[in-house]
């Protein structure tokens, strides 16, 4: 079969350095996964709807950043100021037009309507902007910090720090603002929240729109790293689900933590076994967690 186990581990300094590097890579990758999953976990936490088209929202954010770069030379990090509000509005539209109807629907309907949405978005983009890979080349894209033998990709470090900041921001938002509290209430028990005077419909709208905006934000942050093409969302969506579930479906810090764990699993299995098998180990791990601790690693199902 040809699994290549990594021999001579822990035997010399060089390899220890390699392991440390793999660890750093895993954490950085995890930051990316965590960032992409933020929006989905928020939406799920409040609305209990899994959006299979989340990858496409990410893709739209990436395209947004790309076009702004292409036509205006705007750095993707600055594009955030434009893309996030636009994606927020887009999210409002989609929620109002489509997702709202899914609140009481069966699981099957939810899955398939969002699958259909994903198809619609992917192919609309394919039709309008063709299948070409588009990327953004900025100096940060390939710069890295060097600490001894360890290198840390700068663009990924930025993502990691940004994700951390977003987690803190969201936690503060949810705990301190009245809107945030209303969201938490709705996520725990929408009926009770409703009876307490919370406009649940509005909360759903905002939660979904925020999820969409977060996906757009993630898109801006990762376009220096990955190229965008119409079906790029497909590469991310399954991993995003894994992260959201492992993080406890609705827990913001949980998603971040889970993202890092998934990133570590992937890089270590890739390094010790074979690069192609990294994702496979993640999926097996995912199913095992589902079986033994379905509430996820962080173990709550509310935000």
């Amino acid at each position, binding site marked *: 079969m040809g699994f290549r186990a990594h021999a001579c581990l822990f035997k010399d300094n060089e390899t220890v350095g390699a392991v440390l590097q793999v660890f750093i890579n895993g954490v950085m990758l995890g930051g990316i996964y965590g960032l992409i999953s933020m929006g989905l976990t928020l939406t799920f936490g409040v609305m209990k709807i899994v959006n299979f088209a989340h990858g496409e929202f990410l893709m739209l954010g990436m395209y947004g950043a790309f076009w702004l770069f292409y036509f205006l030379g705007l750095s993707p990090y600055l594009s955030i100021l434009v893309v996030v509000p636009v994606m927020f509005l887009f999210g409002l539209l989609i929620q109002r037009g489509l997702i709202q109807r899914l609140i009481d629907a069966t699981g099957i309907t939810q*899955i398939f309507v969002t699958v259909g949405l994903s198809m619609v978005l992917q192919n*609309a983009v394919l039709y309008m902007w063709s299948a070409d890979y588009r990327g953004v080349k900025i100096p940060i894209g390939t710069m890295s910090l060097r600490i001894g033998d360890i290198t840390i990709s700068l663009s990924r470090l930025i993502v990691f720090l940004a994700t951390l900041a977003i987690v803190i921001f969201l936690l503060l938002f949810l705990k301190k603002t009245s809107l945030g509290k209303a969201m938490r209430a709705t996520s725990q028990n929408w009926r009770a929240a409703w009876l307490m005077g919370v406009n649940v419909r509005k909360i759903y709208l905002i939660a979904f729109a925020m999820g969409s905006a977060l996906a757009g934000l993630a898109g801006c942050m990762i376009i220096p790293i990955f190229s965008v093409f119409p079906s790029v969302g497909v590469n991310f969506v399954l991993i995003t689900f894994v992260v959201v579930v492992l993080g406890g479906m609705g827990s913001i810090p949980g998603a971040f933590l889970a993202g890092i764990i998934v990133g570590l699993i992937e890089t270590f299995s890739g390094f010790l076994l074979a690069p192609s098998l990294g994702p496979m180990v993640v999926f097996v791990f995912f199913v095992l967690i589902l079986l033994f601790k379905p509430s996820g690693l962080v173990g709550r199902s509310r935000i």
Partner: protein
Amino acid sequence: MKSPKNSVIYISGAVIFLFLLLLPFGISNDFYQDILVTVFLFAGLGVAWNIIGGFAGQFSLGHAGFFGIGAYTSTLLYFNFGLSPWIGMIAGGVLAAIVSMLVFYPCFKLRGIFFAMSTMAFAQVLNILAVYWTGLTKGSVGLLIPFTPGWKEFIFQDKAVFALVAFGYMVITFGVCHFVKNSKLGSYLVALRENEEAAQSLGVNTTWCKLQAMMVSAFFTAIGGTFYAQYVQFIDPDSLFPSVMSIRFALLAIIGGIGTVAGPVIGSFVLTPLDVFLRGWLGGSYAGLGFFFYGCILIAVVLVWPQGIFKLLQDKVELYIRKRSSEKSETRDVPAGRPGRVIKHAAAGRECILEIKDLCKNFGGLAAIKDVDFSVHRREILGLIGPNGAGKTTLFHLITGFIPPDSGEIHFKGDNITGLQPPFRICKKGMSRTFQLVKPFLNITVSENVAVGAYCHVNSISQAKRKAEEVIEFVGLGRYSDFLSSSLTLSNRKRLELARALATEPELLLLDETMAGLNPKEIDEMIALLRNISERGVTLIIIEHVMRAIMALSDRVVVLHHGEKITEGTSAEVSKDQRVIQAYLGGSYLHVEPA
């Protein structure tokens, strides 16, 4: 009326069958023949998926995994051992069934979205393995099946033969699905899909049923995979395992009609040509436009017709037939409690049928049930009362196997059943229950609901039906027998729940707040019914807040408060007990006379 509807169905079914059987020979153009083959193949695949996805409600998005297992198994056996793909096909099917059992047995406790995700992960893992394990599968290079026509080789020069084989595949899966639907397993699958807890309480071994459905589904999906390999003569991981393929199977069932046998067939007849059409017409010139419309159509159909096209057709047909034939005019207004041969236990004696000893259950730091201790004698009616939150329903859950106790013992008919799980085992022993919030199987008729209970001790569909009818008469729901249970009033739903539990022929019946939400007249009727049941020999434990019923029915009463038994005795004794009055903070029941 049933007969005209049935004969219409049979005749039109036969006509369609003959038409499709002869169609391959009528088509000379291979391109259309290919569409026909694809339609038949995917119809079969959709039907196979529906067995687990639609009937059992375990929504799988990973069936492409079985599809691939089938294709690779038969092909590799052919390459390495010269085994005819016909045999390889069966081997592939068996392998898929075994894999499904091993992988999904633990996964069945996952619900809805989580189960779907675990299936997606399953297919992805197989995909990655198939690509990586080049020694076995040649990885992405794929396997090319040489074109050597012959029956043994399962390759045919004439596409019409392929179409015939695909037709056969579709018919066989259709037949199997139909058989399952109209069997005990089918009834159980619907029950567990509608409400798994209620199904358990009626003696349905839900896990085993799901497993059976899954294995059958995997088996036939894998067979479809073998056919695909033989037809296209080239397989690689990319054409077999991607999630698009899994989604396709599910899509056929959803568009066509998810809980129905014929649904996926219709789905295939609609979607497959649509696929080809969109790709051929639009895809060439405007990449993406075709699938854009496809996605829009999908959304529209799922939102507007979640039941699928078949249900739409079925309703129209039924409407048509009902207009033509006369209405069923016999109203069977049988008053509740007409004597019948419904319940057989007439065992006399005051022996203990249920003993609870020092039962305890904690949730976190909260003691929900603490040292509860009492017995129930045969043929008596025991009332179980206490303020809200006293732990009455929790006690029921502990007794009937929904929650395991932390300590203490439960003996039923002399057997120690402490901690016996899952609940269906308790039902099989002769104990049934109803629920505080009724759990009817909404999307099926009253008769079908009760039949689920009846199957507890019979196996044939006719016996179950007969028993169900008897019980339905007994509880007074005779004229609603063919109505969908979703159309029943609350009072009738309660009767339905009762009937369902009775159909399992229990010796001990636990009733949780049967009177709640009923108006005084309905309460009187229910009291009479319960008395009737008791007279037939069934022991009853009833949780109630309606004191009138407790007074009227109970031989003895047990009172719970904060999880502890504070007293027991006759209803008169208990109603005067100071502790009880204090617990309820109400003295108005001090002087209620027994009815």
